[in-house]
């Protein structure tokens, strides 16, 4: 895996060069989770999520499935905060790439743990 710089943690795919073609078999995985912590997806959980997402090669996308529909790049802190996901919000985490299933499992686990809040 290429080492990721901290800059990539902060910003979206828009700033990144298009991925070079790799011969790994692509796969897609997705899972629905509910935000459980009282404070919702505020800045610190958003950063935890992005830090974890960045450990995977797969692209990660997060969609809100309740309230206003918004989509975020799971590797962009700003976009994740814009989801404004309060407690009880249903999110769909989708990953594309060789490690998609592992990414989705780990990220869903983080959300369901409540990010260590409360």
């Amino acid at each position, binding site marked *: 895996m290429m080492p990721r710089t901290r800059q990539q943690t*902060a910003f979206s795919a828009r700033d990144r060069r298009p991925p070079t073609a790799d011969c790994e078999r692509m796969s897609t995985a997705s899972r629905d989770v509910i935000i459980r912590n009282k404070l919702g997806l*505020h*800045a610190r959980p958003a950063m935890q999520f992005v830090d974890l997402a960045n450990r995977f090669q797969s692209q990660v996308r997060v969609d809100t499935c309740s309230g206003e529909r918004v989509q975020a790049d799971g590797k962009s*802190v700003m976009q994740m*905060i*814009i989801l404004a996901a309060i407690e009880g919000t249903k999110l769909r985490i989708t990953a594309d790439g060789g490690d998609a299933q592992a990414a989705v499992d780990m990220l869903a686990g983080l959300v369901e743990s409540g990010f260590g809040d409360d």
Partner: protein
Amino acid sequence: MKFSEFIVKEAVEPDLKATNRDAVLAELVNKLADAGALPRTAVEEVVAALIKREKNGSTGFGKGVAVPHVKHPKIKKMVGTLGRSVRGIDFAALDHQSVYIAVLLLSPENQPQQHLQAMNIIFTSLQKDTFRRFLRQSATNDDIIELLDEADQGK
């Protein structure tokens, strides 16, 4: 949620005097107290809480902007302000770049939804290249307020 619902216009600072992170936090919180948006007696505690929050993880999310924020029992009503630095401040930002725009947000402890909505409007605007560029070019309080009003009107 609109900027006008929490940004205290009189507290907006187009030319921050402070040159380091902690001093910027103190300057902005004092601006809110000067404007009557925060009790003077709460200033010290709130600044300390903001510094603690930054040490926990920088709110300098990159591209020259920072959004220092904290939830605190002494804050009864959500308030915010914005400071612009001409020379740039080291905020230990995620992208290691200097910060030129700091949006400060102080929230009560028991209203997470309102806090998230305010963060939503702040980041929706800050993500736009033109908004950040215009903010950095705004040399007066009026210019900054006008920009925020335009964002509120969806321009």
